[in-house]
């Protein structure tokens, strides 16, 4: 029972953190350099791994579906399957999982170490709210970068599928049929739905990472525990939210 109460308290405190943070939204023009720095850290440095991961997810998807559909002579539908899967589900979910592991963990580690070594207290004594300079630029940066990362992930995933469809003999399709099928099936709405999901997941990953980081007490071991907790909570949250957001968007 105590753990349930503690979990509910944490959810409440996370919401309070978000509300407090967005009270300072008017300071974003003054903090433009921080926003650019966070956008660079979240976006640019994550991009290579998004590209690699998405390419191979698209490839494997094409390989699996192509191999199965070939038995029915339906390999021309590979583009539709890969296109829809990437746009509506795998693109946003995989980018968010990557974000939780790569960026969320780093954000928690940085804020937890600032908390443990009293840097956050020092900010408070200077009358500089930590929500304003530590949380807000990260949350706003993720809202800008998530669509970019997801679109890149989608496009690269589609290309990965196309390469497999065109050049792997056991799949037995071709470049034109793949893209024809993809174009006929994937609607603009599918891409937008995926981007909405990505925005929601990305926002919560960074919010959870900031919340856990700023509430760390203890020393180096507790910083490590916080990083682990941040990644685990984010992963669970992404999958739980995925169900409800998908349901809402259908």
């Amino acid at each position: 029972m105590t753990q349930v109460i503690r979990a509910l308290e944490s959810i409440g405190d996370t919401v309070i953190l978000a509300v407090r943070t967005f009270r300072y939204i008017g300071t974003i023009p003054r903090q433009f350099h921080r926003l650019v720095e966070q956008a660079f850290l979240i976006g640019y440095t994550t991009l290579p791994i998004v590209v690699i991961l998405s390419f191979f997810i698209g490839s494997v998807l094409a390989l699996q579906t192509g191999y199965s559909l070939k038995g029915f002579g339906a390999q021309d539908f590979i583009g539709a399957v890969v296109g829809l899967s990437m746009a509506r589900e795998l693109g946003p979910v995989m980018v968010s999982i990557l974000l939780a592991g790569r960026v969320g963990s780093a954000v928690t580690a940085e804020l937890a170490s600032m908390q443990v070594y009293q840097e956050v207290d020092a900010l408070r004594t200077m009358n500089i709210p930590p929500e304003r300079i530590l949380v807000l630029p990260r949350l706003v940066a993720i809202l800008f970068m998530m669509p970019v990362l997801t679109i890149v992930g989608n496009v690269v995933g589609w290309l990965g599928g196309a390469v497999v469809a065109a050049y792997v003999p056991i799949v037995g399709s071709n470049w034109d049929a793949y893209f024809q099928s993809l174009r006929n099936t994937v609607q603009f709405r599918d891409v937008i739905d995926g981007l909405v999901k990505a925005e929601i997941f990305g926002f919560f990953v960074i919010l959870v990472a900031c919340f856990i980081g700023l509430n760390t007490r203890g020393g180096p071991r507790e910083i490590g525990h916080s990083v682990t907790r941040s990644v685990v909570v984010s992963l669970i949250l992404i999958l739980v939210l995925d169900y409800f957001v998908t349901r809402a968007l259908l």
Partner: protein
Amino acid sequence: MTCLTVTDESQIPSLSASEEAVGLAVKGLHKDFGEQTVLTDINLEIEPGEVFVIMGPSGSGKSVLLKHMIGLEYPTRGNVTIDGKPVTDPATLLEVKATLVFQAGALFNSMTVFDNLALYPTEHRIYDKKTIREKVMETLRILSLEDAVGKFPSELSGGMRKRVSIARALVMEPQLILYDEPTSELDPIMAATISEIIASLRNQAHITSVVVSHDRDLSMTIADRVALMLDGKIHLVDTPSNFQKSTDPQVTEFLNPKIDLANPRYKAMK
């Protein structure tokens, strides 16, 4: 490392408070952490421009009291006010410039020394960039830290980190400075220098200072009044001269602990 002695107070022209000094009052302060009581019925009146030193054994609650004085901890009962305004109200620290020099420095490790000092005036848009640069460089010069301007805190010695922490507080041009063990980990000359700076800030800029320290030399030389804290309670508040004359056994024991090899304290503690 250049040694510094601030014997001539004209050396610190820029370290003046921008506004009048403030007084601080602690009334009926009581703090529990779970089952453990850390502070019991603390009552203090600190006058504007006073240097008030709080002494006491480790674990007596001095640093927790200091954190209450700047709103980093919330009391279980009682209150702390600065010029009559409750310190737990965020508006108070918008009106009054107060700062805390942390024992471990609490410098921003991902920023250079310059950025550590420039953060407050930049964030609060107190001066333009050029003036901030001048103020920061002047403060660093006074504390013999010019060479450290581009360094990260991890590249500094313990003493230098402490001085940067004090410099960061001074750049804020505060009305109230709280120091948590400002001379610990420093060599005797640097400890004397820090004591001189605290006294100079009172004499020249009329800044109110509350200092938590074990340093008897600092306490007896620069303090206007000294408090002794024992087990979370204020045991005695008096002027340094009366403090030294006190016949209270706990005060004399704290000020002049005798090393008794025949009857060591750790055996008595058992």
